[in-house]
């Protein structure tokens, strides 16, 4: 053998299959409620009706050919792309803010990868049974039982993936029509392609790759790690309490609660009874005291925290990059602690700082940090601006561009003329007449050709060429003026645009 051969590790890490044990508890309940709520919204929202004059009766419809997003009573046009930018900004800041406070809460409870994987594991559990049964099935040869169980699991996964794809596409077209068209072969090619890609990717990501997506593919998990601070709450194993001086130990005679039963039959019965009377302790407390006397920690090394983990790690090795912070190990550990009568919270949400403290206090969310407050302020400001911007949106958009080639024209009489292009986009649901006027210059100076009033169809834009002609003396004094665009019959919605007026002397 060459030397060093034994140190050579394969570059490719083969996936070790993970069979998660189901568990009950606070975090499982929370995860299930989030899953149900998220699925209810995602799968049912496209089917919610909403009466509209000029569009299909669907509450949420991303009408791409019509270049508008219809979201309940709100119609969003491409001009409103700033709202999308704000929304993305808010989402990013919210992620930073929450990660600084409670770690990767998004990963553990809200991320669609986690949700869909959770749902797929539930399907697997319903068909193939609890963890030991699944492990047995995995190891057994391909017999009838295995083929039926594995095939039906995968069939259900594909079905769930397919409906995920259909639901996604349903946001982009009238949902009932889409479903009929889809199965009669009349839907658009884009619909088939999108559903196909989403079915495949959902099946692969939630059924086959699972935690590998979080470990190897997802960038968010990676960069959330750098947002952790010593004060950040995260799922931690209390190593000091769990390991004691001599490490963890399984429950055996002399180290745990079984001690009582073992000794009871023997001659020491009287001694034990006396001891019990003497110290007013519960069985669990007594067992713990005995373990502590021998130097053992509270961890009974049952391995349940590892068995329930969807990413297949041992939380007792400390905080690690694969942990998606789903809290299932907390539920598992608390179940065991309860059954032994030990105090809960051997695995718990806590901060590094608190765990390292001489006397750990009750873990709590610590937000009084400059970074957290900064994120919080940014979040509030941007959310407020988004709400303000949407609630004060006008019924039309306008853009006034001064024509710069040339900036001004000297007319035969010496007058100076500037020209402007006014674009008005009607965002209301019906035809609208817009009246254009000017302030700050004589009324006669504004020439709008034939379009002092212009009628624009909903969702359409109208272009008006405006020219302003001022005598030389007045032109010298005029640096700018205001154009007023008023929807006819709605003076309250008038909007004012300030524009420049250029003349030869002002040339830089």
């Amino acid at each position, binding site marked *: 053998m060459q030397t060093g*051969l034994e140190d050579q*590790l394969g570059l490719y890490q083969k996936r070790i299959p993970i069979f998660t044990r189901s568990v009950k508890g606070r975090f499982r309940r929370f995860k299930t409620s989030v899953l149900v709520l998220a699925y209810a919204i995602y799968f049912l929202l496209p089917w919610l009706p909403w009466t509209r004059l000029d569009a299909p009766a669907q509450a949420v419809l991303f009408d791409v050919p019509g270049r508008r997003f219809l979201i309940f009573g709100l119609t969003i046009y491409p001009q409103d792309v700033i709202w999308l930018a704000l929304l993305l900004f808010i989402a990013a800041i919210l992620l930073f803010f929450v990660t600084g406070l409670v770690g990767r809460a998004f990963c553990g409870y809200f991320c669609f990868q986690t949700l869909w994987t959770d749902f797929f594991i539930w399907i697997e559990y319903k068909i193939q049974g609890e963890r030991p049964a699944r492990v047995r099935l995995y190891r057994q040869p391909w017999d009838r039982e295995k083929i039926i169980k594995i095939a039906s699991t995968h069939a259900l996964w594909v079905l769930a993936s397919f409906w995920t794809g259909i639901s996604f596409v349903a946001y982009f077209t009238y949902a009932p029509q889409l479903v009929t068209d889809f199965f009669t072969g009349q839907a658009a090619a884009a619909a088939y392609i999108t559903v196909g890609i989403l079915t495949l990717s959902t099946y692969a990501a939630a059924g086959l790759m699972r935690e590998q997506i979080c470990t190897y593919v997802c960038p968010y998990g990676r960069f959330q790690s750098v947002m952790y601070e010593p004060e950040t709450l995260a799922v931690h194993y209390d190593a000091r309490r769990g390991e004691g001086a001599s490490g963890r130990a399984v429950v055996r005679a002399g180290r745990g609660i079984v001690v009582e039963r073992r000794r009871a039959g023997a001659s020491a019965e009287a001694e034990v009874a006396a001891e019990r009377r003497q110290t007013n302790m519960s069985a669990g407390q007594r067992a713990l005291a005995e373990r502590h006397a021998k130097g053992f920690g509270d961890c009974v090394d049952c391995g349940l925290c590892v068995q329930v983990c969807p990413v297949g790690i041992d939380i007792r090795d400390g905080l690690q990059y694969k942990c998606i912070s789903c809290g299932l190990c907390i539920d598992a550990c608390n179940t065991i602690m309860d059954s032994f009568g030990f105090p809960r919270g051997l695995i718990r949400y806590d901060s590094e700082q608190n765990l390292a403290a001489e006397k750990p206090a009750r873990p709590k969310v610590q937000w009084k940090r400059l970074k957290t407050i900064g994120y919080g302020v940014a979040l509030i400001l941007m959310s407020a601006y988004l709400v303000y911007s949407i609630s004060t949106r006008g019924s039309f958009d306008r853009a006034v561009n001064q024509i710069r080639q040339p900036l001004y024209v000297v*007319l035969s009489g010496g007058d100076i003329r500037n020209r402007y292009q006014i674009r008005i986009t009607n965002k209301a649901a019906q035809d609208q007449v817009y009246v254009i006027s000017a302030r700050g210059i004589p009324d006669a100076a504004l020439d709008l050709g034939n379009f002092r009033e212009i009628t624009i169809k909903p969702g359409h834009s109208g272009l008006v060429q405006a020219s302003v002609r001022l005598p030389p003396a007045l032109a010298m004094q005029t640096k700018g003026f205001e154009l007023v665009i008023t929807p006819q019959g709605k003076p309250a919605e008038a909007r004012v645009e300030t524009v420049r007026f250029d003349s030869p002397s002002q040339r830089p």
Partner: protein
Amino acid sequence: MSEQKLRQQKMESQTVQTTGHAWDGDLQEFNNPLPAWWVYTFYATVVFAIVYWTIYPSWPWGKGWIGGVSDITYVNSAGETKTHSWNTRALLLEDLNQAAVAQKPYFDKVSGMSYAQIAKDPEMNGFILSSGKALFADNCAACHQAGGQGVVGFFPNLTDDDWLYGGSYDKIHETLTGGRRAFMPAFSEVLGGEQIDQLANYVARLSGIGHDAAKATAGDALFHSETAACYYCHGSDAKGRKEIGAPNLTDKIWLWANVPTTQGEEGKVAAIRGVIANGLNKGVMPAWAGRLTPEQIKVLSVYVHELGGGQ
């Protein structure tokens, strides 16, 4: 299983296997196969390539190439419908045809409407502004500049209210269709330098810029005399004659003499003097009748009219 044992097992399972051969007693070869997903992705790209070659043009073959099973039907420049193995050139032609078909209703509408109707229709107005802009940029902007502002000394400004040949829709249309050719003789051949200077001062007075009053008065007489005979073309009121493109000399607009950007009264008069002395033979506008369709010329007429100076 203890943790150490587990770790050891993990190590063992990940230790690289050798191919099993041994040379020279101890020389062995690692067996590091590529991951299965990688290999299958590679196979998939091979299959993709074969499918692609079958559908689209791929390999050179003799004097041509293997066309592939997909083809494209297009209308070529001669108006013939042709079918050829798929290629992007034909796709471009087809796209251009489709764009032309989409524009046709608008151009049809333009040819059926009067100028006044077009100007009052918001939809047609929008079409003129966008299609006219493209036509103008392609055909006119080389001389008249992108915004139609022209170049003093060479190309007239289309955005002001002064027109050499008239600024009505019909006159603009006439200019576009037939082109124009302007000419002014060089007066240095018939007049002395003193006389030209007098004329230049008179022209400066007409436009209200600084001048020598005595020379201007002399120039006035010369202008209306048979010696110089300026009034033949520019008119006795010096307001020009649109039918021959003789410019109005009394307004504030300058095309040939670069008065606006020349500094000082002397310089401005000198610029005018230059034009009178040397004349000019460069006021040429090409005819567009054969190069643009009648609809395109009509669109351009409205567009130029709307640049600001239309009358």
